[in-house]
């Protein structure tokens, strides 16, 4: 049977990047416990709109936990209290009548607030642009089965590739480090033979971009792994570091001539 509950929300409201921002209290009345967390916010938003107040802006799209759009800090935890679950897949049955819920945007220097709970995560895109790909033109690919990949490697690569780029790892980290995000892509491609030829360049460029964006360093707090909705393991960060050390041991001019080729 559905339960109905009344909640109090403390929501971060900020009109734009220049605005100071502040918490505002809202009553969320008659919330059905079958609702998703975002549906609860929809209901609050419809209510606000009826009163002529601006609705709370938040990013969302698939609402299935796969696009990585949604992201908010719920009671201090990125994506909220359920393990391996994005905010859009969080359901209200985890809350109870009378609960007070604090909702904030991702907080990190590299993620400026756009409005309310919406932040600018383009820094993550730029890390991928720095080298998170295999350079293969459309049409240039060899027959797919001409390159067997051991199942174990492929499975491990997948575990890294499953990252949805939501940025929760950054939001959870006391240093606002993007190490888990960056390591996931580096590992995905380093574990596969297709990623081999560009491996050295890739790790150097992606790590350099990560630093240039103003993300902090990893000091092994492991908060990122705990909040990652896709359970990406911090062992990939160790892998990234090993990849980097190996890449550093290659003479820079060798790298130069390689990247020219």
């Amino acid at each position, binding site marked *: 049977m559905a339960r109905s509950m009344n909640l109090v929300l403390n929501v971060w409201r900020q009109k734009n990047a220049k605005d100071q921002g502040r918490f505002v209290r809202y009553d969320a009345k008659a919330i059905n416990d079958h609702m998703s967390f975002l549906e609860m916010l929809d209901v609050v938003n419809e209510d606000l709109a009826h009163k002529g107040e601006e609705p709370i802006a938040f990013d969302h799209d698939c*609402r299935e936990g796969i696009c990585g759009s949604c992201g908010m800090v719920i009671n201090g935890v990125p994506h909220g209290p359920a393990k391996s679950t994005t905010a859009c897949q969080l359901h209200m049955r985890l809350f109870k009548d009378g609960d007070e819920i604090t909702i904030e945007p991702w907080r990190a220097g590299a993620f400026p607030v756009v409005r309310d709970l919406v932040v600018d995560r383009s820094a993550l895109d730029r890390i991928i642009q720095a080298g998170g790909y295999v350079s293969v033109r459309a049409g240039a*690919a060899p027959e797919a089965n001409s390159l067997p990949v051991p199942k174990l490697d492929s499975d491990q690569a997948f575990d890294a590739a499953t990252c949805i780029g939501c940025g929760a790892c950054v939001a959870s980290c006391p240093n606002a480090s993007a190490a888990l995000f960056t390591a996931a892509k580096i590992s995905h491609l380093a574990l596969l033979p297709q990623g081999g030829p560009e491996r050295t360049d890739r790790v150097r460029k992606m790590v350099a971009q990560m630093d240039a964006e103003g993300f902090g360093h990893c000091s092994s707090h492991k908060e990122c792994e705990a909040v990652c909705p896709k359970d990406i393991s911090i062992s990939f960060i160790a892998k990234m570091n090993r990849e980097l050390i190996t890449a550093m041991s290659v003479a820079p001019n060798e790298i130069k001539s390689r990247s020219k080729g």
Partner: protein
Amino acid sequence: MQLDSRAPTGPIEQRWNEARFKSKLVNPANRRKYKVIVVGSGLAGGAAAATFGELGYNVSCFCYQDSPRRAHSIAAQGGINAAKNYQNDGDSVYRLFYDTVKGGDFRARESNVYRLAELSVNIIDQCVAQGVPFAREYSGLLGNRSFGGAQVARTFYARGQTGQQLLLGAYQSLSKQIEQRTVKMHPRTEMLDLIVVDGVARGIVTRDLVTGKVSAHTADVVVLCSGGYGNVFYLSTNAKGCNTTATWRSHRRGAYFANPCFTQIHPTCIPQSGDYQSKLTLMSESLRNDGRVWVPKNLADLQRDPKNIPEADRDYYLERQYPSFGNLVPRDIASRRAKEMCDLGKGVGPEVAGVRRGVYLDFGDAVKRLGRDAVAERYDNLFQMYERITGENPYEVPMRMYPAIHYTMGGLWVDYNLMSTITGLFVGGEANFSDHGANRLGASALMQGLADGYFVLPVTVSNYLAGVKPGGVDESHPDVRRTVGEVEARIQRLMSIRGKRTPESFHRELGTLMWDYCGMARTEAGLKFALAKIPELKAEFYGNLSIVGSGEEYNIMLEKAGRTADFFELAELTCRDALDREESAGGHFREEHQTEEGEAQRNDDAFSYVAAWEFTGESLAPKLNKEPLSFEYVHPSQRSYK
């Protein structure tokens, strides 16, 4: 206008090769002088933009999300078809072609479908080379499964995240081009209109979703890959932002809209739990391999704990009605039978708007037969997802399922080159109507999006560009300024209504109307009712809409209002098309046209054509243009699953 499909003739195996050879080329040194606009960064748009960039064109790509990686394609679960015949089970390009034409209920163009089947093999090569981690066997070679009732195992998959992995592959290639500055990405930017100068597409007008700034972007060619319009039904399995604005606005500028009534329903989605529901979640079709569908025989049992309902009191209606196919009947049949049961008052689960809409999908027998571990191995991730959403454990309580809108076969009409009826406007992916006829087979949308993006558009758009001089129209052109002015006026109009109802409430009401009268089963009376009702609701929208805030800022209500406004117009056209098509075909089921067994009945003599609708003016009836279909290779037959 006479519709020319420009489909090549001659032996079907040679048509694409021939067309490629005849295509004109642009000199590599000249390519950067050509501006190419791609709207959309899903599988079709992402692949197209990356490939145009690789070829050296000057590309601008647009999406409404904050990153191109989040396009709706990311959500596809099941897999992608390709005629590799790695399983040596008798598959071939010809068989995939045959299955797709037949699956589309003989309402697609043979030439296009053959090309799609042909290119399917290149797609897999491309994606593997990018590092897409498809499922592999212990040999290290690629694995396959059979999907959606196909008799061969031709589906490639990446756990339950095939769309995600394919999209990330395209996104990574796109990222490389962004880094190389051949592509400029415009995220959080929505296309609100198409710029047409002297009958030729010359650019788009966009709104920056963060600042509200309206601007014009001119180009030598415009490629729309903006996805499907399933959200006209409000509740669907599509992402929340999916919309018809890019395609609808282009339609109003002269692009014909083809077969809007061909919409697909997916039988296994998690039912609605209340009137606050914001979207529906699809559960993989594979569940029907082991799950048994039933409803209680007695109305008194509807609210009873299903575990306590004895076998004798359960109606396994699919097994009863279709003894040979049972729970594995095709999507549309499974969907309609579920609706029928619920209409009869036999649905289970919570009551929403007075009706219980759900049927049981029971794994009790599977657990007994195979053991819990074997069931877990096959379905555990799906069971977890179900439990997260419903709070019920499918190992103990039967799942509840109900059909939902999932995909739209209709879309902008395109010729063989994927060019619309506007010169210089190309359309790829779910946004066009081209390859799936009246019904799409499982795992074929990803294939089509990538075929269009990586392989078809790069050839056909280059061929087009080779015939035009680059540049010519810039932002100061009067037609460009006029279009920008019209967009601003439209935004102004929405902002200044200052009524009482939110855009969300209108969209929801429109969606309910569409689902009730133009959903799984359609009738003449119902469609006529909807056609009377939609204009009323639309009039109320323009008289009583309320948007808080201003247009010069991030405004989620304004975004929603613009999309809803376009859905109203598309909804009307969809109902009109459904009314006009006096037959049942694929996803379009007219109750008046069924066999004695309740199966869809096509009328090939009268309706073997593509309905391409032409916009004739505000509040004027659209004009129907027909592209006749002929079948040289696969001869139309009536299907039977009894």
